[in-house]
């Protein structure tokens, strides 16, 4: 499921998360974000969740006030991509407890940490929700333990 990038943005087009699985210069990333937000936000309701852009397939889904948008290669399975986006939302939901956009805004680094336990190099690394949740929890505990050990507050 070679994902090229994953973006989260609000209905006003504000970027909340950007994960790039391919090396691209900053300028080009900005352009892509702009293209994606324009394209996706102009979609009418009750249209399908797939778009074509350049030689990639774009799969997007709206969850409350956030759009989750990813880019796949032409041979990839769009329906599975929808499941991937859904899985990520479930992971966030479990972690934050009824996740909303504000959680992701104020704890963006956590959203990245969770994503990095789920996807890697554009591919899925773990298919079990429990396994991912355990790893994130353990890493968070590690942070705390190390801090206590160094007897300095973390932030």
């Amino acid at each position, binding site marked *: 499921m070679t994902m090229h990038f994953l973006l989260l943005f609000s209905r006003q087009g504000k970027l909340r998360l950007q994960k790039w699985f391919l090396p691209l210069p900053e300028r080009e990333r900005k352009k892509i974000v702009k293209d994606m937000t324009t394209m996706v936000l102009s979609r009418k309701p009750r249209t399908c969740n797939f778009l074509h852009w350049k030689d990639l397939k774009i799969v997007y889904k709206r969850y409350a006030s956030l759009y989750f948008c990813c880019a796949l290669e032409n041979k990839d399975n769009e329906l599975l991509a929808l499941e991937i986006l859904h899985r990520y939302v479930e992971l966030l939901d479990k972690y934050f407890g009824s996740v909303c956009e504000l959680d992701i805004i104020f704890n963006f680094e956590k959203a990245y940490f969770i994503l990095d336990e789920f996807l890697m190099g554009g591919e899925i690394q773990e*298919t079990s929700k429990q396994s991912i949740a355990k790893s994130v929890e353990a890493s968070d505990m590690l942070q705390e333990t190390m801090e206590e050990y160094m007897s300095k507050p973390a932030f």
Partner: protein
Amino acid sequence: MTTGCHASKDTVMTPSVRLQEMIRVIRSARTQGEERGIIQKECADIRAQFRQGDNGERSHSLAKLLYVHMLGYPAHFGQMECVRLIASPRYSEKRIGYLGAMMLLDEKQDASLLITNSIKNDLSHSSQYVQSLALCTLACMGSAEMCRDLAPEIERLLRASNCYIKKKATLCAVHIIRKVPELAELFTPSARSLLSEKNHGVLHGAVVLITELCEHNPDTLDQFRKAVPELVQIMKGLVTSSYSPEHNVAGISDPFLQVRILRLLRILGHNNDTASDAMNDLLAQVATNTDSSKTAGSAVLYETVLTIMDINSESGLRVLAVNILGRFLLNNDRNIRYISMTSLQKIVQTDHNAVQRHRGTIVDCLKDQDTSVKRRALELSLALVSAVNIRSMMKELLIFLSTCPPELRSQTTSGIFNVAERYSPSKRWHIDTILHVLTTAGGDVRDETVPNLIQLITTASELHCYTVHKLYRALVKEISQQPLVQVACWCIGEYGDLLLKGECEEIEPVQVTEDDVLDALETVLQSHMSSPATRGFALTATMKLSTRITDNVDRIRSIVSIYGSCIDLELQQRAVEYNALFKKYDHMRAAVLERMPVMGKNSPGHTNGDTSGENKEPDPSKPKPVEAGLLSEPASQVCDLLDLLGGTDTPLQPNPAPTSTPTTTSSTDLLDLLGGLEPTPVLTETVYEKNGLRLKIQCDKQTETEVMVTLIGSNSAQNDITNFSLQAAVPKSVQLQMKAPSGNVIPAHGLGQVTQTVVLNNPNKVSLKIRIRVSYSNQGVMHQDTVQIDSFPSPACQPQSALCDTYTSSASP
């Protein structure tokens, strides 16, 4: 210096209070300017923090910088801080440092090289979570150099570590192979053994790794074919396993892993009979047992269909796959309908009949709200049109044209013209259809539509009366659609006499006077809606009428003289020349404006040197090489004529090229000149001739691994041949694709033919043979014969086109 805030119990996992405070402040900014000011201040603070060195604040500051970066502000001054934090012994600092590296550094920056050493160390850290950070970062932004450096480490972790690390190392290996393909052989040995892991994360990673290895190297692919039985076992386990809460998604056990395995099976089974056979049963099982009521199941079914269609599967399995796609078409979920049509589009040529069964549903999808779905439905519908369903399909297509979104209109009109050309049941139907399209969507048609339609009209000589009446009525109604107006003007000019006669079998007669006709043309001439080209048509038509009407010639004379001073240069030139025709050359006017002969079909690539290739011409003894410009520039013709007529007074047919006097001879002379050039530039060979039926094979295209031929059936007997159908068989390794035939009736007396295109894909480059079974009915008797073709006529395009080129270059004006 501490932050002064102690995290409370329930925010112990998010102790970044000051970060959150900064975010709050930024969000409260009411204007862009205000926000910029806050950001500038914060960045200054962050810079100061960085300069202060280790004080427990660094990770906090970097986190703030990363937030600022996401808002779109520059953050490159944080790059070195990432490098420093990654090297820190504290997990919290490493964690944010690596995150920063993934966000701010990419392989193009020099700073990225500096973290290679830290990554190397962290790969062997005692804590697996630290190892994990290193692996993740390497897989995200590792450059080729870093990959080469660290590959041995990754290979070691692939073999000897716990599941948590193994699964990450596997994906890291995938990234390394993508960056440095030569390193693939390093990972090949361990990849196979990973398939025996039970952990789904590792298994998934293993399948991805093997897929990557196979895609890179065909020899490795051969090797991994031996793993097909193992993969089939794993899949079976997933499909038949009892409910496993850890991996269950809507009743499907680990759909992510299932899809990945199916994809690998597809690659392994492609073009390989043994592998395909080994997975046949499994695919049938998955296709039948997977519950597709939710997206997860549909995703698995979709991947299964893709796999079935891409390997050498039994025909029963293929039918099963197409039926799944057919079911998808009826699904409520628009995404699934869209997916279905995309897949059907890919197989509509190879499995034409199977897809035809779902034609009704596809046509219904033309009415969907979503433009992407509409577009897919349009493409599929056009591909499904055949001689049998042309009338009903065209009804649907025309309805669609009247309501379709503007971005699809030109695709629709092109599509309609193409299928009309191929499958028209009659000339009148064809003309009516084109007129309908021009009335509905005249602004969205190709440029060649006008000359093509005119050519079509000339060939339908029995319909001239009907056509001109119909066009006249359309013209009188409205003149905004330029292509329609142009064709109408041309017809009125050409066949005005038929219009004035008033009698027409196929249409209610209406009295049209000469004044009416001239009024109509003058309206076009004077309207601001008419383009310059259209006005040219109208003027020429008016002129032509001077020999077809009796009473109002003076009116024509005055119109023509008025335009002699028109600002538009083209119109002015025409008017002046027509004036001259009235005055000085009046004795020639009748001959010059005579009825045009039937035109040969003129495709864009041909120039006046090439003879018309179509057998549609009812009058082959008088072919006139037609120049595309002939229709819109009769004026220059007259000019040339006048030049030519310096001395002689032989009435010459309208002829575009002054030097092309040889072309006024009949087509047989033309053929002699070109040394046996057939009207069609490719070689055809007769392979079967019996009972009046003649079957020819014509080679259209030939490459090393692919041949495209057209089979042409013609009938010289007294009676029509019906139920004509062809079946073909080819050697085992060759793939056959028979496109839809143009029809199944071959009219008698050579009045028509049936063609069918066949594509042969010959990847192993074996010697090509094809066995064709011909079935047909003649006078109520069924005939069936088999003919074997052992050698194909080679397309003789190359040498003959050279002749063509030299000929046309001498003929063009």
